[in-house]
C-alpha cells in the first residue's frame, strides 16, 4: 500500500450531478412558501415550544404537529463559527460566519450564514435579522443570509393558517460532487493494454481462472489476481440479445446484436457488439474477433472470424 503510484495509473475527473426533486409535506410547504412571502413560520409542539424551522413530528414525543405560528425575522445568535474560505454552494462567496439563530418567538435555532466584516464582529448573544434574497422561490436560500441588527426582542408570536396563494409543494435541490476517479492498478493495466490493441486479464493464483476485465481479486477465492495473461484476440459468442431501441447519442443502426463473448483463454465472458454479419445470423458458438477503429482505445465491435462454430461443450461453463 505504500508503493509510489505507477506512471501508467489512469485518473480522470468524475462529476456526479443530480437535481433531486423533493415533495414537501403540509408543514414544510407552508414554511418554504412563507419564506417566499418574507414570513417565517414555526410549529408549536404539544409542550408549547416553537420549532423553527418547523417539522411535522415532535422530536421528543414523535407526535404529529401541525399548529403553525408566525415568528419574527429578527433573532439572537446561539452559536457561531467563522468561515474564512467559503466553499462552492455556500450562501456567501466572501468570508462569513455560520450561525444558529433563535428567531424572536422561537425556541430552537435555524442554521444559516451571517454577513459580518470579521470574526471580531460576531459573538453568541448578538442580535441579527434576516436579509431576504431578491429573487425568492420558496427555498431555504430565500434567506440570503443574516445581518447584524441592533434592537430588542419585541415580537408577539401569532397563529398562522399556513395558507398562501400558490403554495410551493416541492423543491429541486441540485447536488454536485466532484471526484478524481482512479480505477486502480488492475483496471488501469487493462485499459492501457487495450489502447495497444491487446486484451489482458489476470489469473487467480488458486483456481487459475483468468478474469477479463480484471478487478484485482478473484471473487471465488477472495485472493489478489496479479499474474497478467493476454487473452484472445478471437473468442466465442456464448449468448446474445437483439437490441431494437436506438440509444441517444449512439450512432448504431438498429437492430443490432449485443453479445457475451468468451475470449480464448479467458475464464469469463465480456460483452460487446457484433457487426459484419446480419443480426439474425448471429448464433451461440459463433467465432468472432475484435475490430478497432482508428484511434479507438477499445474494440468498436466484434466480427466473425470465418472459423467453424465452437462446440457447445467448450464454452457452456462461460455462459
Amino acid at each position: 500500500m505504500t508503493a509510489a503510484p505507477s506512471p501508467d495509473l489512469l485518473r480522470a475527473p468524475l462529476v456526479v450531478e443530480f437535481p433531486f426533486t423533493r415533495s414537501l409535506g403540509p408543514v414544510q410547504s407552508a414554511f418554504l412558501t412563507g419564506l417566499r412571502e418574507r414570513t417565517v413560520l414555526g410549529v408549536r409542539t404539544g409542550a408549547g415550544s416553537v420549532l423553527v424551522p418547523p417539522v411535522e413530528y415532535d422530536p421528543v414525543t414523535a407526535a404529529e404537529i401541525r399548529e403553525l405560528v408566525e415568528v419574527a425575522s429578527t433573532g439572537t445568535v446561539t452559536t457561531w463559527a467563522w468561515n474564512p474560505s467559503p466553499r462552492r454552494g455556500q450562501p456567501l462567496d466572501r468570508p462569513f460566519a455560520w450561525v444558529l439563530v433563535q428567531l424572536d418567538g422561537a425556541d430552537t435555532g435555524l442554521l444559516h450564514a451571517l454577513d459580518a466584516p470579521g470574526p471580531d464582529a460576531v459573538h453568541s448573544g448578538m442580535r441579527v435579522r434576516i436579509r431576504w434574497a431578491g429573487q425568492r422561490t420558496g427555498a431555504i436560500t430565500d434567506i440570503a443570509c443574516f445581518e447584524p441588527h441592533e434592537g430588542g426582542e419585541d415580537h408577539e408570536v401569532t397563529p398562522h393558517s399556513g395558507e398562501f396563494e400558490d403554495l410551493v409543494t416541492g423543491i429541486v435541490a441540485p447536488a454536485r460532487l466532484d471526484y478524481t476517479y482512479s480505477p486502480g492498478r488492475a483496471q488501469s493495466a487493462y485499459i492501457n493494454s487495450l489502447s495497444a490493441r491487446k486484451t489482458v486479464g489476470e489469473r487467480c493464483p488458486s483456481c487459475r481462472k483468468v478474469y477479463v476485465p480484471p478487478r484485482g481479486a478473484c471473487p471465488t477465492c477472495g485472493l489478489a489476481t496479479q499474474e497478467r495473461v493476454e487473452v484472445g484476440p478471437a473468442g466465442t459468442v456464448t449468448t446474445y440479445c437483439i437490441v431494437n431501441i436506438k440509444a441517444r447519442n449512439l450512432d448504431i443502426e438498429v437492430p443490432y446484436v449485443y453479445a457475451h463473448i468468451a475470449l480464448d483463454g479467458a475464464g469469463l465472458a465480456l460483452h460487446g457488439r457484433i457487426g459484419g454479419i446480419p443480426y439474425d445470423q448471429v448464433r451461440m458458438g459463433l467465432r468472432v474477433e475484435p475490430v478497432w477503429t482508428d484511434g479507438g482505445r477499445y474494440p468498436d465491435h466484434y466480427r466473425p472470424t470465418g472459423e467453424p462454430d465452437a462446440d457447445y461443450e467448450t464454452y457452456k461453463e462461460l455462459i
Partner: protein
Amino acid sequence: MAPTGSGGPARPARDVAIVAFAQTDHLRRTDELSEVEMLMPVLHRVLDATGLKTSDIGFTCSGSSDYLAGRAFSFTMALDGVGAWPPISESHVEMDGAWALYEAWVKILTGEADTALVYSYGKSSPGEVRDVLTRQLDPYYVAPLWPDSVALAALQAQALIDAGEADEAALASIADRSRASATANPHAQVRGSRPPGDYVVRPLRTGDCPPVGDGAAAVILAAGDRVRELCARPAWIRGMDHRIEAHSLGVRDLTDSPSSRLAATHAGAFERPVDTAELHAPFTSQEVVLRKALKLGDGVAVNPSGGALAANPVMAAGLIRLGEAAARIHRGESDRALAHATSGPCLQQNLVAVLEGES
C-alpha cells in the same frame, strides 16, 4: 435478549466476543488500489489471525458509503475480496462498520451464526470529504446551504467554549495527546507533535480536525465455544447499543450527547468503571462532549491508539475504535474497555460497546 423494563442493560443471550482485528495503514491517498485491493490484505490478516477460511464464516457484514467514491453499489465490488462465490450469508450497511458489527452481533445473538466477519472501508481521497458529508444533512433546510463537516463541528466547539467547558488551549491539548499516543500506532496517518495550525473554521484549527485519508478495517466475532478455539484472550462483548438524536441541529444541546449516555447505559458501561475508552471523536471538541456524556474520569486511558485525530478513514474509523479496544484486551492491556462510534454531524448518532477480558 431478555426484556428489561427499566431501561437498564440487557443481558445478552449468548456470549459473543471480538476474536481478531486488523486494519490497513491509513494513507492520504491510495490511487493505485481499487477499494477491493485496499481491503483484501486486511481480510486475509484477520482471517489468518484465527485460522478461519472465508468458507468457515457464518455471516459477513460490511460498512461503506458510495458517496465517498462517487460510484453506485461500490460495496458489491469489494465483496470480491471475501470470496462471495458460491453465495454467502452477507449484508451491508451504508454506514460506518461499527453498525455492521452491531448487525453481526445481533445475527449471532439470534443463533443464526456462530462466527461473523465484519469489515469496512473508505477512500476519501477521490473527492472532497467536507462536501461529500453535506449530502447526509436535512435536504430541505440544511443541505442546500452546503455547510461542511468542519463548519458544523465548529458550531459545536464554539457552543462548548461559550458554556465554559473548553477553550482553544484545551482543544489543542487533546490534539497533542492524541497524536502523541499515535506514535505507538504503526497504522496511524498523523503522528507526533505538530503546531495547532491555522483556523479551518474558527474556533477549529487544522490540529483540531481529523486527517483526510483512505483505509480499511476488519473484525471477526465468534460465539460460545468457538471463541476459545480462535483467541487466547477474547474481548467479550458485554453490551452494545446505539441511539440517535433529533435531526435538526437547532433542536439539540450541542454541548451534550444524551444519545451516547443512553447507549452507554444500555450497554452496561456504568455498572463498573472502564480502564480504556476508544472514542470516535473526529474533532477535538467532540472528545470534550463525549468524556462528559460517558462520565469518563481522568484514570481512563482515552484513545491510546490516537483515535480519529490520528487516522479517520470515513466509514471505518468507528469500527477501528471497537477493534482497537478489543486488541488492547487481546494483548492484556485492558480488562474492561468502552468503545464508541459516531455518525452524522455533531455526534448525531452514537454506538457504545463494552468489552471485557477475563481476569
